[in-house]
Structures are given as C-alpha cells and as structure tokens.
C-alpha cells in the first residue's frame, strides 16, 4: 500500500508542520499529511479535536475568524497557499467548500448555482454551467422545472446537494466537506455519499465526519485526529495521530489510540 508517487498522482495538498492558534491558545499542532488527487480523504476524531479547524485551513477560511493564526505550510500543487502575497480569495476560487448545515443563499436555485460564476466573471454560457453543475450534483431532475424557485423551499438534503452544485460551478479541483451529512436524514445522507463517489472521478475530496461508518464507507484514506491535554495547564489541542489507507486505519491501526477510537472504545 505504498502511496503512488508517479507524476500524475502528485499530492493536491501537502501539509507541513501546520499549527493553528485561536488567540494565544493552540488548537492544532504539527499536522503533516499529503492529500492525493481524485480520492476521498476523511478526517475523523472526537469532538473538539480540531477536525473543522484543519479542513478550514485548506481554503484559508480560518482567517475569517478573528484571532485565528496559521503557521506552517500547505502546498497546493506545490505552491504554499499561506505564502506572502497569496490572495485568499484566489485560493477559495480553486478549492470549493460545503458546510455542515446547508447554507443556500436566499435567492433562486438558479442564482445560487450561478453565484460563483457571476462573481468570478465567467465568460461562458451560464445556463449551461448551471445545468451541468446541477446534473453533477444529482439534483437536476428534481429542480429542472423550478429553477426560479427560492432555494429555501428545497428540503435539507436537496439544499445540501444545491450547495455542492454551487461549489462545483466555480470549477474547483478540490472540494472540502465539513460534516456535509450531519444535518441530514439517513436517506439524504446516502444520496450525498453516492454523489461523493461520482464526484471523486473529477475532484479531490476532503471530508470531515463524526461518523466512523461514513468514513469507512466513503473514504480512500483516513486521518485520525485526537486531543492532547497538557496536564499542568489543562490546555487542549488537536494532533494528527495516524494517517493512511482507510482499510488499514480501520482494520490494522498502528496506534493504540486509533484502535481504541475506531473500535468504539471511546469518542
């Protein structure tokens, strides 16, 4: 199971010694990992271990939180997105994100999908782009006759697929998903998971999930984060305990903490 290092399989993201602070308190310490293209990478771990913090580093969303500082490197196709002079707006145009709670804009379905294209000055046919994105997000057949309807009239599962369509429409090459199914019912969850398998052909996907079964079902590689506690100050921060093929993490974990977590002994 050696990672393929051929040129076509060069990592999309190479995380090197990533630390995140909120104010003066450390939230995430020393994360180093490579994200491979066109695969699904799951980030799992107990609550408060920094999963969301980590995923928000990949498109520089953390700096929208006052007081958040990031040190270390994330190389995106070899280029450090935290280097001086890199515009976070340009980073976010290449790396899409889907959030925990569906957050469609209070606009029509069409305008939601067209939003990214319009603000980015897309020159092509927006109608065609909207249709293609909705088809890719497996939502087209359900909404094709009501594109002018408010996105807020859709069900939660449909809203989340709309958010995925909205992210795809910007034509990113990586999609970050922060617990995309945690606010959805089981059937809607299955649809999102099926959709991820389809999207994997074209996109690199990173997913944060609370749900270990979900991580085992959908992902190719899994990162296990855990909380470290400083007994003296009772300060807590997240560390990357283990990262590898999902099958290996769930069947032959090399770290005792991973084994305890995936076998349900805590968390």
């Amino acid at each position, binding site marked *: 199971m050696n990672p393929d290092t051929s040129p076509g399989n060069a990592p999309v993201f190479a995380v090197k010694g990533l630390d995140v602070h909120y104010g003066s308190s450390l939230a995430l310490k020393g994360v180093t990992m490579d994200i491979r293209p066109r695969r699904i990478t799951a980030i799992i771990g107990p609550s408060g271990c920094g999963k969301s913090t980590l995923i928000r580093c990949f498109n520089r969303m953390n700096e929208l939180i006052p007081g958040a500082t990031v040190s270390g490197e994330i190389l995106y196709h070899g280029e450090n997105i935290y280097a001086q002079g890199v515009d976070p707006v340009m980073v976010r145009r290449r790396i899409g994100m889907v959030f925990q709670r569906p957050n469609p804009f209070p606009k029509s379905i069409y305008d939601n999908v067209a939003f990214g294209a319009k603000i980015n000055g897309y020159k092509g046919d927006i109608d065609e782009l909207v249709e293609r994105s909705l088809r890719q997000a497996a939502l087209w057949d359900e909404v094709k006759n009501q594109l002018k309807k408010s996105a807020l009239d859709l069900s939660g599962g449909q809203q989340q697929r709309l958010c995925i369509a909205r992210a795809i429409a*910007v034509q990113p090459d990586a999609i970050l998903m922060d617990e995309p199914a945690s606010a959805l019912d089981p059937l809607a969850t299955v649809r999102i998971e099926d959709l991820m398998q389809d999207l994997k052909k074209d996109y690199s996907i990173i997913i944060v999930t609370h749900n270990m079964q979900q991580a085992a079902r959908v992902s190719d590689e899994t990162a296990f984060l855990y909380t470290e506690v400083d007994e003296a100050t009772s300060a807590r921060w997240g560390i990357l305990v283990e990262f590898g093929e999902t099958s290996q993490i769930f069947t032959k974990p090399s770290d005792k903490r991973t084994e305890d977590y995936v076998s349900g002994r805590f968390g």
Partner: protein
Amino acid sequence: MNGEPVEIGGAGPGDAVDYWGGSRLAPGATLVGARPSRARVWRNRRSTFLIVLAVFLTLVPVVLILVQITTKGLSAMNLGFLTKSLPFSDTATGGGFLNGLIGTGIMVGLATVVSVPLGILGAIYLVEYGKKNWLATLIRFFADVMTGVPSIFVGVFVYTALVIKFGYGAVMGAAALALIMMPIIVRSSEEMLKLVPLELKDGSYALGAAKWQTVTKVILPSAAPGITTGVMLAVARAAGETAPLILTALGSIQLVTKLTGSPISSLTLLIFNGAQQPYAASIARAWAGALELLVLVLIFTIVARLFASRSRLTK
C-alpha cells in the same frame, strides 16, 4: 379513587409532608378528569384579567386619538383640501394644505436621499468592517445619543450652522430631518445586518467572493427587507417632525417649490399654525391636515410591515 374527578393537590393518604405545595397530582390519581386546584384557577383568571385590562388601558388613548382625528378631520377633508393651498385669509373656509404636503414631500424626500445611503453605508461599516474597534464604538455611541436628542436641538444646530448664513429653506429643513433620520437608519440597519447568518457569509467567501462582493451580493440583499422597514419608520418619523422645521423651514402660506432662498411649509407646520388660530375654518383645516399626515404615516408603516413580512431571512 375510582375514576372520580380528582383535585390536583389534594393530599393523598400517604402524603406526610406536602413538598410540592399542593401543586402535584396525588399518587394514584388519574390524569383524565383531574381538576386543577381552585387557587390555581383563581390565580390564572386574575392574571389574565390584569393583562387584558392593561392592553385595554393602553389602547384607550390610541383609539381616542384615531377617532378624534378621523371625525374632526373628515369634516374639513375633501378633494379641494388635497389639491389647494391655504386660502387668502385664515378666517376663510375652503382651501387646503397642498403647500404643506409638497413641502413635506420635498424636505422628507431630500432628507431620505441623503440619509439612507449614508446610514446604510455606516451600518455596513459597523457590522462588517469596524466591528468593535474604537471608531465603530464611537459611531455607535453617538448614533445612540443622537436618537435620544430632542429634535428641537437639531433645529437649533441647523439654524446656527446653516440658516444664519443661507436663510430659511427646504434644504435647511431637509438637513435637520436627515440628521434625525440618520441615527435611526444606522442603528436599525445595523441590527438587520447583524441578523445575516454567518453561514451565508461563509458560503459566499468559500465560493471565492471578495468582501465587497459578499456585502453587495449576499449580505445586503438578505437584509434588504429589514433595512427597508427601518428606513420606512425613519421616513414616517421625519414626516411627523415639527420642532426642527420651525427653526429651519420656518413655514409659508404659499406653495413653494424652491430648494433654497425661501421659507417653505410642511404639513406639521401648517397643523401647528392652523390650530393656534382662533378661527373655526383654520382649526378645521388643522384637523384635516392631521388626518392627512396620519394617513400618510399609516401608509408608510403598512408598506414597511409588508416588506418586513416578506423578509426572506425569517423564512
């Protein structure tokens, strides 16, 4: 207990101490058919009565004002009142407050054009840029102080700042009204902008939107219905102001459409002047003017409510 109605709080045979103050169902009692205790029923009725009484007492003056203005106002209200200006003499019947309506329209319109964009931009600064820095805190503090300042002070301020140099006129009146409207618009828009969920902003930023794009394309449209409500209320407030106009617009018996160089009237000034006269015809016109202003403000308020109920954020 054989299914008989049971009184809640009636101590059962096993109850040595009544820890629950008689508020608990006795052990073994059935819920079906259980009656609440008389004391609780009485407390409930008394509270309900007091609340209804309070609502009634609050409504009495409002209803009296509405009835008074409507009945007295309707007696002098006709098409001529809406389309004619004051007659040549206070003692003459007929004529109307067209000059006041136009003056109010010009001054409130000017004040709106100035204060709405500035007020909304100020609110955007407070919520999205300044947040809690010293400048934002200062602006917020002075906006609050300005909302509480008696409007005659605003009139005095504009009088010393503008009127002494440029004379009475519509622009001076509008300046005073704009100063009154601005803090209301800033603070109400700020509250509406704060209600825009963080998730929506995150969604916009995650799609590669710059901050100004997020503000103009997501935040403002989402908050627009609420902001509109605040603006309408500020407009209604300005349309009803008298004191600041006395020192800035002064009032006129003629129909004036000039923006500067001539005193101009407003509905409120004509009501104020008309009601002071000892002549029946003049006083009747003041009542009709009050009705006209009331309907005007009512229309604004209804439009504001319609916008608020269409708020897409609360959906």
